[in-house]
């Protein structure tokens, strides 16, 4: 093929430009530490990375919710625990006062203590977590329980607060009315019975308190079970989060060893091209030789 002078120069310039482009690309990748900068650099990997990031965002969102639910349930568990201890004392007291050896004075003293226990339980029933009442259904800004005229009054509602975790829904709150109303009523009944000094009334009230305690224990157990489920979700979500981050990194991040090796290779190639093409450009032609 006949080679014209312009062909030689054009080819030399093209080769240098191509080598420069490759070096620039390798430098960008090495300094950005990213396998691609724009979607067009690698559409498949970029699309997958975007999709994974969305999933990661959703996972993080569920994780935040799961922690919030766990906190709520922990606060609930604390209330349950305190109530359980208070009720245990109430049962001991009530059982003791059933004995005929206790007279009206002892029983009145016990009634006073019982009302103290009632107040403790009432306080727990109105527990607050981050400004929201734990046992009020949806009416989280309304103090749910009061004892009016000897009867427990519930001002909350029956709303079930649900939260979405990864692939399933969990109820965060308890059926407060069903748990605390019998408890408060039976404590109040027991206090009245102790005040009245009627053994059969005390016995009846104790029966009601035991029944309320069973219901309460079941609710506590249910809370515990749900909380275990939430904590398992947290564990799974954290593992998923790590896995997703790893996958995103595999898609997005440049293999630095590879990037640096390629940079070195392209720089060496560029230097070689410069060396070769400078010879081409400065090559003599016949005019230089002829006298």
């Amino acid at each position, binding site marked *: *093929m*006949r*080679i*014209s*002078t*312009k*062909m030689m*120069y*054009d*080819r030399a310039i*093209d080769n240098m430009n191509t080598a420069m482009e490759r070096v620039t690309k390798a430098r960008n990748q090495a300094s950005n530490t990213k396998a*691609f*900068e*724009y*979607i*067009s*650099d690698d*559409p498949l990997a*970029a*699309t997958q*990375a*975007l*999709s994974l*990031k*969305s999933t990661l*965002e*959703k996972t*993080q*969102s*569920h994780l*935040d*919710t799961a922690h*919030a*639910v766990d906190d709520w349930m922990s606060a609930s568990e604390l209330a349950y625990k305190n109530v359980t201890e208070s009720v245990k004392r109430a049962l001991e007291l009530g059982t003791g006062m059933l004995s005929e050896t206790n007279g009206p004075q002892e029983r009145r003293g016990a009634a006073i203590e019982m009302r103290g226990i009632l107040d403790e339980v009432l306080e727990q029933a109105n527990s607050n977590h*981050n*400004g*929201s009442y734990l046992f*009020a*259904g*949806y*009416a*989280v*800004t309304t103090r749910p329980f009061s004892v009016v005229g000897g009867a427990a009054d519930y001002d909350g*509602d029956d*709303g079930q*607060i*649900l*939260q*979405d975790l990864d692939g399933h829904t969990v109820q965060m*709150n308890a059926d407060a009315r069903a748990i605390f109303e019998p408890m408060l009523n039976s404590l109040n009944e027991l206090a009245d019975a102790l005040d009245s000094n009627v053994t059969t009334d005390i016995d009846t009230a104790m029966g009601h308190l035991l029944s309320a305690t069973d219901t309460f224990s079941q609710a506590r157990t249910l809370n515990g079970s749900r909380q275990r489920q939430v904590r398992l979700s947290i564990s799974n979500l954290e593992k998923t989060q790590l896995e997703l981050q790893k996958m995103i990194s595999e898609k*997005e991040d440049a293999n630095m060893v590879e990037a640096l090796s390629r940079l070195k290779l392209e720089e060496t190639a560029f230097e070689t091209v410069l060396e070769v093409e400078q010879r081409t450009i400065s090559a003599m*032609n*016949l*005019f230089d030789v*002829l006298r």
Partner: protein
Amino acid sequence: MSSLLSGIHLALSALQANQAAIEVTEHNVANASTPGYRRQIAVMGTGVPYGDSEFDNGRTGLIYGTGSQLEQVRRMANTFVDARYRAEAGDASRWEAQSGALQPLEAVLNETSTSGLTAQLDQFFRNWQGVASDPQNIGQREVLLTQAEGLTSAFRYRAQLLDAARRDVTTEISHQVDQLNELAGQVAALNEQIAQQAAAGNQPNDLLDRRDALLDELGTLSNIQSFQQANGEVLVSLNGHVLIASNVANKLEFSTDPTSGDPVISWSGGPQVQIASGKIAGLVSAASQTLPDLRSNLDTLAHDFADAVNDLHSIAYGLDNQDGRPFFNGDSASTIAVHPDLIGQPRRVAASGAVDAPGDNSAARAISNLSTSKLMDGGTQSFIQYYNQQMTRLGMEIKTAGANARQHQSATAAINQQRESLSGVSLDEEAANMVRYQRSYQAATRLMTVVDEMLDTIINGMGVVGR
């Protein structure tokens, strides 16, 4: 019979022919780097011979040569290779233009970063999840509203970007159409000059070079086809319609469709023309397909997204126990905004499904779950998937355009090498030619000297005996 005087004429013809050939060589050397220059070669030929009449009496006459002459200065060009070059260059320009029109957009949209619309949509739904996990939390509601304002701003920004990009590309098309008309006019003017020169028996090689360079440039703008005419003119057609005939160039006009905003190129006072190749084709593709599609799909996303959120929000209750408030205003990417009733009013964010139920998070959960609801593209994609698909399509189009451009650039370079191989100047070759013609010139001058001496012998040396 030949004479000494004819010998002088012979030597003179050699001197003149070689002198002219050297001039051709000089011209080549001077234009070795001139873009578009086609080397010229001196085609030498013998002069018209004549017969010796003294031998006409039945005997075979001797034929005497009359020296050499420069018969032609041939321009080394190949119209077939030129046509192939223009076709490939046109395709390369088409894809380069398309890629060039779209690539800056990708850089500005920057969807792979945390400021991309995908990331902002993700954050929006995450903030709703945050409200759902603690509906009472005013701080969480404020975060939601602030981020939602950022999200709508991102929509509007992208709408503006796409509109501006389309405007810019459309303006560029107008400029390129003007450029095409200008080039066509220049080719038509050259046609006239070349035809005149050819009619006078001249060889307007430099004018032909200039015209070919203009045709090359036209080829990068559009899918022209050129046909050499016997009188030296070139007929240029575009999509089967005459663009240049003789010294007349038909003009193209540019306008935009009042409804769609698409660029429209038509013959002056005539039908529309679909340019299939060249820079103009690439720009038209970007302006009439890619950019409007992106814009339209962005509007669809903004509209459907706002509708879906509003449908749930307007039937839900805020902490003020009011319902009926949409979350977003506007129904397109350029108008979407957080409803002014909500700005600075976090309590009005409707997370609850019932009145007097501040702990009810059902509406917030429902809105958050929109992130995975398949409400786009006939119920097959979520909002985020839909937008990702648009960006992936854009990325693929840029990548494909770039790959096609490189492929056609390689082909163009290969054909250009063929052209250069035929038409390019080799300084080595010209140096050798120069030496050749120089030596021939020197020999001719020697010849002249010999004849001169011979004449001198006759004129000054004969008939002097006894003087």
